[in-house]
């Protein structure tokens, strides 16, 4: 059966996600998120973390870390390190592309 409702969503940016939203979107419990924030592995430097609100960037990072921890049974610190490197890699690729150099 096919339906075609037109739906509008909310853009996750700035401070839209709550702690519970973030945990649920990553299929983890809130303690998982809290522990990683308190250890500086997640949302580090985010201006919203003090009010326990999370951005698109935090969501991407939290999902990436949780998948790395599960898939490789990685220690949270190691998953965060891999996430740091992946993010840095993406940043550099973006800059290469912006400079017209491609990434191949």
């Amino acid at each position, binding site marked *: *059966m*096919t*339906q*075609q*409702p*037109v*739906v*509008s*969503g*909310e*853009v*996750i*940016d700035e401070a*839209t996600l709550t702690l519970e*939203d973030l945990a*649920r*979107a990553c*299929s983890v419990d809130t303690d998982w998120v809290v522990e990683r924030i308190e250890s500086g592995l997640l949302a580090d430097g985010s201006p919203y973390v003090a009010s326990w609100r999370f951005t*698109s*960037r935090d*969501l*991407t990072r939290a*999902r*990436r870390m949780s998948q790395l921890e*599960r*898939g*490789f*049974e990685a220690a949270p610190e190691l998953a965060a390190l891999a996430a740091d490197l*992946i993010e840095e*890699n*993406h940043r550099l690729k*973006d*800059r290469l*592309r*912006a*400079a*017209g150099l491609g990434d191949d």
Partner: protein
Amino acid sequence: MEFKDYYQLLGVSKNATAEEIKKAYRKLARKYHPDVSKEPEADQRMQELNEAKAVLSDPEKRLAYDQLAKRYQSGQDFQPPPDWDAGFEFSGRGFEEADLGEFSDFFANLFGQGGRSGRAGRGHRMRGEDRHAKVFIDLADAFHGATRAITLHVPQVDAQGRVVSREYTLSVRIPKGVKEGQHIRLTGQGSPGVGGGPAGDLYLEIHFTPDPRYRVERRDVYQTVPVTPWEAALGASIETPTPSGAVKLKVPPGSQTGRRLRLKGRGIPGPEPGDLYVELEVVLPPADTDKARELYRTMAQELAFDPRQRRGG
């Protein structure tokens, strides 16, 4: 729906130990990790691997799957027989380790909603899983907004209590000003809840379809604009297409290839709109006619110009 051979997907034998399954999974997960893999369809391979691991690393599900697999081969058309999992008791939903919403129809039919036993009236009420999907939009969509159709497969319990896969298309409004990597949350469009619980949410991760004309960094957009030598040398007012529409651009006299002009606020819109950077590329007219060759010769004679001398080369 095709039968999936999870052992084949992981490249292990039917009697592989838990340790062998784990090792095979990790090896392939490294190869197909979507963040680093250059393999085609890495996302889909990763999903299949996660699925295979979720089943084969859980002794209860592996046993139930093995019983079923005796009757099927990989790729064979498959419908779960009634009561296929009779006699197996799955522990709760059992998928704390995975995003159920991201698994295949095959998986959802077997284990969706915790399998048959999970919906056998334990009376618990649970919110549906959140789901995630990537959406590719054109850069122009971020400037003007757009509506995109997204096809999703959702496991659903039918009137007979069977889990069926329902395909449906959502038309989603992509608001103006979205950035690469940003998420759009569609409340209640995730997996259905259990026991009358609310549905989960659907998160769409926005990506721009690669466009050779434009490059994007955060909200800033970069594009190269070809100009003639006389436009670059003498200055000119030219018209050029940009993601937000055609604009008139002033080329300052004495421009060279690589000169970057900033059009403030003409990047991706938002509370703090990005800038558009136009990089000039001087393109020489071909010397393919007598007239063109004559003009080049005149320049060579009349202009005291040696770019190598200037560089000291």
